[in-house]
């Protein structure tokens, strides 16, 4: 066998993994956090019958929405427009950034205050705006910390989860002049004061969207801190950026999604705020933004949508439970992935957003243990999709040909030949038995890159007689 470690194909991934694994504080931070989150989810969903009924319902709601995705987007657009929300469509991250910039320029905006939005991370919006001389300031505490550190989020729900209190205290001290303190309440209060000022001065508030309801033209935001509400209420202009898959058909459809989102993510029965926005400020109203823009971002999703199996990826409601329960994520943390979305959802989503070859090592970096699919509130069969991506990567199926643009990018003649040889033997029992006999004598039939195996394990020792030999002996002696 010529199974190789994915060093070459994976490129930087291996280097980052090595660094992360060698970084004791990072590993401790993640282990502690993930253990806590798993426990909280289990407690919040301990009634298994309720849990499974809800998951069934939530999956059904998302499937139903995806089945009518184009119609629902048109309906959402119409409804929003009729209520005074301006709707834009962006094919990719670049276009979406440009649309935000155009709105900023039109309003002569200098500063944008941001609520948490993973799509804006996907767009690398902050960077883009900075280059145009516009300041984008994160207001979610975790995002704020990450921005101060000039890093990216390491978790989609808890962006600064890779840092401990001491590191955050040090960072805030250096960047904002707060006292060195391990008192989380103090640090939180400092951030509150620093950001309150900024909310009042910001020209534009930019947020993500958790669910958009087609029938009522409503943008729903889920949050605990209140920064999302401030972002969408204080500045005179609100821009919401949203992946096109986030739409649901009916208002009632959000109820199971909301319930499972918060319980799966952090074990909360609900977040502090569930914010439903359906129009800009009306003439008799005294606050709220005068202008609301909705930017519908494709960025690879419509392509992904075209395959009925891969499409399941779009069911995701970004709860993060799959990463919280992932043994790989827990070990290497979010940054090692080098992607906007880390963890299991990142592995199946990123190849469609930033290219398959750019995320070459991700689909194989899983034991297919299934912990992610077990907890996913919308029942995405993540391990099956990972296998599908592995198949796409080597173009390994002639009956169900691969469809992705970069299909087969990982196929090497050596590995293909090895599997061919293996299959040849395994279809010829006599030859196969001879081969295993030789292996037993020669002692090294197992994966040829046994080096990787034996670094931390002893090599497996073949038994003196195989089971089939033992059976043959037994039958002879009868």
């Amino acid at each position, binding site marked *: 066998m010529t199974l190789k470690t994915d060093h070459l194909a994976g490129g930087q991934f291996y280097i980052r993994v090595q660094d992360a694994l060698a970084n004791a504080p990072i590993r401790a931070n993640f282990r502690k956090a993930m253990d806590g989150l798993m426990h909280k989810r289990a407690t919040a969903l301990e009634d298994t019958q309720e849990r499974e009924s809800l998951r069934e319902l939530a999956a059904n709601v998302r499937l139903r929405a995806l089945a009518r995705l184009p119609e629902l987007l048109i309906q959402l657009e119409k409804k929003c427009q009729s209520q005074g929300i301006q709707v834009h469509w962006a094919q990719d991250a670049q276009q979406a950034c440009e649309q935000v910039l155009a709105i900023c320029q039109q309003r002569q905006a200098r500063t944008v205050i941001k609520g948490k939005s993973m799509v804006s991370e996907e767009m690398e919006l902050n960077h883009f705006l900075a280059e145009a001389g516009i300041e984008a300031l994160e207001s979610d505490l975790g995002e704020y910390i990450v921005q101060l550190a000039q890093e990216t989020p390491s978790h989609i729900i808890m962006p600064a989860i890779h840092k401990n209190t001491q590191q955050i205290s040090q960072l805030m001290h250096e960047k904002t002049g707060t006292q060195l303190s391990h008192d989380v309440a103090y640090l939180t209060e400092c951030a509150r004061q620093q950001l309150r000022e900024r909310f009042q001065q910001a020209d534009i508030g930019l947020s993500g969207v958790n669910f958009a309801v087609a029938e009522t033209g409503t943008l729903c935001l889920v949050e605990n801190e209140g920064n999302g509400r401030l972002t969408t209420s204080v500045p005179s202009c609100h821009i919401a950026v949203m992946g096109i898959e986030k739409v649901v058909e009916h208002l009632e459809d959000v109820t199971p999604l909301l319930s499972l989102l918060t319980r799966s993510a952090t074990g909360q029965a609900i977040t502090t705020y569930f914010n439903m926005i359906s129009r800009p400020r009306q003439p008799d109203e005294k606050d709220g933004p005068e202008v609301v823009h909705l930017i519908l971002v494709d960025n690879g999703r419509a392509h992904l949508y075209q395959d009925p199996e891969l499409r399941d990826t779009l069911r995701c409601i970004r709860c993060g439970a799959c990463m919280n329960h992932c043994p790989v994520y827990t070990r290497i943390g979010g940054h090692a992935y080098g992607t906007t979305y880390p963890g299991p959802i990142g592995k199946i989503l990123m190849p469609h957003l930033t290219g398959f070859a750019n995320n070459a090592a991700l689909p194989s970096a899983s*034991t297919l243990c299934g912990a992610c699919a077990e907890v996913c509130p919308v029942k995405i069969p993540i391990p099956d999709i990972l296998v599908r991506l592995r*198949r796409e990567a080597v173009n390994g199926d002639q*009956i169900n040909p691969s469809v992705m643009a970069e299909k087969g990018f990982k196929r090497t003649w050596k590995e293909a030949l090895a*599997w061919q040889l293996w*299959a040849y033997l395994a279809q010829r029992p006599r030859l196969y038995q001879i081969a295993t006999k030789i*292996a*037993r004598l020669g002692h090294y039939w197992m994966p040829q890159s046994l080096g990787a195996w034996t670094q931390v394990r002893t090599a497996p020792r*073949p*038994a003196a007689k195989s089971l089939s030999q033992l059976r043959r002996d037994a039958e002879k002696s009868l």
Partner: protein
Amino acid sequence: MHTSSSSKVAPLYTNAAPAQQASHRLKVYPPKPQKVYFFATCLVDLFYPDAGMAGIQLLEQQGIEVLYPQTQTCCGQPAYTSGYHDQARAVAQAQFDLFPEPWPIVLPSGSCAGMMRQHYPQLFANTPEQANAQAIANRVFELTDFLLHVCQLQLKDEGKPIKVALHTSCSARRELGIAHVGETLLDQLAQVERIEPKRTSECCGFGGTFAVRHPQISAAMVEDKTQALIDAAPHFVTTDCGCLMNIQGHAEKTRLKLQGEHLLSFLWRRTQNDA
């Protein structure tokens, strides 16, 4: 603009991924049969024949005749999870003829049973063998599951008091949903104290080719798993040879005092008079 409009009812469809539907296929336990087919799996055949023998003996003790097709090779899983589905299909199909009569097919491995039970139908979708693959899948059982639920196995413990930690493989736990089986069987043994290791449902880091493709992550995982098992008890049993080879190999390499054994070998040994 496109001609479709919301007035024209768009065709809706369910999740088209057959795998997901398959994993929800209800398992129907047959009545206790006269005979079963025994599919040993490559790891048992080559490295842990004693586990296979133990399984066969436990079956025979139940009065079941064990048919051992000598021409069996591999379920095809390694190629399947590596994305080489043409090869996986060819090898899988070569096994179909091993089971001509309608007896159940039992495997001493959750991972290979999971492959045959949950993935064959999808692997053979859109091929002439589709129905055949489905029929075979429906007959596949992991052996301990079969012993407990079909044979209603009752164990009598003949051994000395011992503390044991159980590691259930991820395929047995999540793909087949039979995590309770190993626990129930061990709990039948009066002198065996089963100790639940910390984070018991977490993967050991084997994952087939994962262990060689991503050795560092795999190493970090097996380190933790081995430690959790040692913290629980000096002896562990597991339902899958992959996990056994991984954990035992790591314990040996790092000279940790942890003794591992396949669950079937352990059950058989404990119920013998000379145990």
